[in-house]
């Protein structure tokens, strides 16, 4: 077996906008036009390239993510990988049993019961009937719907439908698994269950290609990431690096302020640049201010958002007068902000600004300047780490209990 599980070799894919001929009446004029006009343009009217010259390799056992804005070509790539679409140019090679999870429950038949659909869907995804029979109980348990398994799926709520769909798909056990944005089904608890299952799949040595907008999940599952932009490869490399670049969209308004904030970086306590932090870890934010005027009565604003959903985690205004009470800021000055990362698992982005209190205006702003990730295994969900401990109140002595580390 070769080391490469999947290979995309200079793939181009062309699509057509608008309606295509789907009745004979439309075809005849089109064909005659094609015969009589000598047209060898690369792109005909209404055609466009959805992917242009995309190449990448995925190694065996690797968890590989594909990210990008809507329309960047993620789904097209996945459909090409799963052989639902074929490339216009280039070669796609896959070594091993491949299963694609593009939409959960796509093969469900509404009139059939949950049980019947588990078998049907399992076969569609490439399982054998025996295999499904063996895993049936496990699948039903995973979906958590044993009591509704003999009800037709048309009576299911959309959440139940998706859960059963994912449960089947999660038990396919292929050598290469392609997943498109399916972790966004069900409630938080079920999503965590899905993520957990995915982690297990990765750990078992399955090659996983993961397409998602959920950067948190990407960061957690995948070691390497491909970022697509407008149908071409924008960046390919280790997940942290690619996400870092993807999230740091340079602010358009940066030039509107005469004062610049530059060289913003996040470091560990001991100094080197750092992207991944553990909950409660100490960090240092370095930045350099190039003032265009004397900064008096200014505050340094520090904003942290969760990158995946934009939740404002905190917004501090730190008076600069306290940093150097007697020497006014007139020339380039480097500042250091000490932070404690009391955050839970996630991707976060830091913005900084300088606010002039007397005139109530911003003098400088660096929007989404730097981002970081927090990895932890303490809590299922949430943002802040309140470091809870439980103790039992006995007459005089306390038995302290710390949160247990999971997985």
């Amino acid at each position: 077996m070769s080391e490469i599980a999947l290979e995309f070799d200079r793939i181009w894919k062309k699509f057509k906008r608008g309606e295509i001929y789907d009745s004979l009446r439309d075809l005849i004029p089109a064909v005659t036009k094609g015969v009589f006009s000598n047209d060898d343009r690369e792109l005909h009217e209404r055609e466009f390239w959805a992917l242009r010259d995309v190449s990448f390799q995925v190694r065996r056992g690797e968890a590989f993510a594909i990210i990008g804005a809507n329309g960047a070509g993620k789904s097209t790539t996945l459909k090409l990988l799963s052989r639902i679409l074929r490339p216009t140019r280039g070669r796609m090679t896959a070594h091993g049993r491949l299963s694609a999870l593009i939409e959960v429950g796509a093969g469900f038949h509404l009139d059939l019961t949950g049980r019947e659909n588990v078998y049907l869907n399992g076969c569609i995804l490439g399982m054998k009937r025996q295999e499904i029979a063996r895993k049936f109980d496990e699948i039903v348990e995973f979906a958590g719907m044993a009591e509704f398994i003999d009800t037709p799926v048309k009576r299911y709520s959309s959440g139940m439908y998706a859960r059963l769909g994912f449960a089947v798909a999660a038990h396919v056990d292929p050598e290469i698994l392609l997943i498109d944005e399916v972790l966004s089904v069900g409630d938080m608890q079920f999503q965590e269950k899905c993520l957990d299952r995915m982690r297990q799949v990765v750990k078992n040595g399955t090659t996983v290609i993961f397409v998602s907008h959920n950067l948190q999940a990407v960061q957690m599952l995948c070691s390497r990431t491909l970022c697509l932009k407008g149908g071409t490869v924008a960046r390919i490399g280790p997940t942290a690096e690619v996400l870092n670049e993807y999230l740091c969209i340079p602010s358009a308004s940066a030039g509107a302020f005469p004062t610049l904030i530059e060289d913003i970086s996040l470091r560990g306590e001991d100094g080197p640049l750092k992207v991944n932090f553990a909950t409660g870890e100490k960090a240092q934010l370095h930045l350099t201010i190039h003032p265009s005027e004397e900064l008096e009565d200014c505050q340094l604003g520090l904003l942290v958002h969760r990158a995946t959903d934009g939740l404002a985690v905190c917004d501090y205004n730190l008076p600069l007068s306290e940093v150097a009470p007697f020497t006014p800021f007139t020339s380039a000055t480097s500042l250091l902000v000490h932070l404690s990362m009391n955050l839970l698992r996630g991707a976060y982005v830091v913005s900084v600004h300088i606010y002039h209190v007397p005139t109530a205006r911003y003098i400088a702003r660096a929007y989404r300047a730097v981002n970081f990730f927090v990895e932890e295994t303490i809590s299922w969900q949430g943002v802040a780490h309140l470091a809870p401990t439980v103790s039992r109140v006995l007459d005089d002595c306390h038995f302290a209990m710390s949160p247990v580390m999971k997985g």
Partner: protein
Amino acid sequence: MSDATPTLAESLKEVVHYRDLLYMLTWRDIKARYKQSMMGFFWALLMPLLIVGAGVLVRIVFLMSSGNHINFLDLASIALKSLPWAFFVSAIKFATNSLVGNVNLVTKIYFPREVLPLAAVLASLFDTAIASSLIIILLVFGKVGVTIHLLWAPVILGLIILFTAALALFLSCANLFFRDVKYLVDILLTFGIFFTPVFYEARTMGKWAPLLLLNPLGSLLEALNTTIIRHQGPSLPWLAYAASCAILGLFAAWRIFDRAEASFAESI
């Protein structure tokens, strides 16, 4: 695995690999067709039996108007030929729609698409098989008799299935690109019964008979009638002709299907 069109052998191997899916889809088609209906599988019997009934009625009227006796063997012959025809009509109808009716599967999940029209054919085969058991009982009780020529019957039935599968593959894929095909097929199936020797025998057409036998289904139905009811060997040249139509047709249709498959997801 490369992205070029697979060879026939590769494609066949893949369908064999997905045989469980073929089974499940066939089963789904059978099961879902009669779900939430009071009469359930009775509907599977009704359609073929209606065709048989209509054929028998037409025959009786003809015989009475020409002053002939009503002959049991004549009626048995009509019943015998009507069933494969009923299978053919339902299989082609379902298969033509099989790709378009499963957009979700075609655009979302990879599996050999041949499975869809083939499952439609198999589901219709199952329906017809139920009705056939009644006809077999009829033939046995009518003392039609058993001869060595009966051994031809499975071969002929096999060829009918192959020919149907060939058309099913071709039409399902044609319908995906041009929805006109569906209407065309509906019309042809409605009037096809007049141009196929189902309710009559080809020889009644005299010198025009070969024209009817050029339709492979026509020569196969005739052969079925000859071997089972008339206890004679089939006309070998016509059987050979029909067999090559069915087998070569299946190869050609499969090949066309494989070629077109590359653009199914974006053209559907």
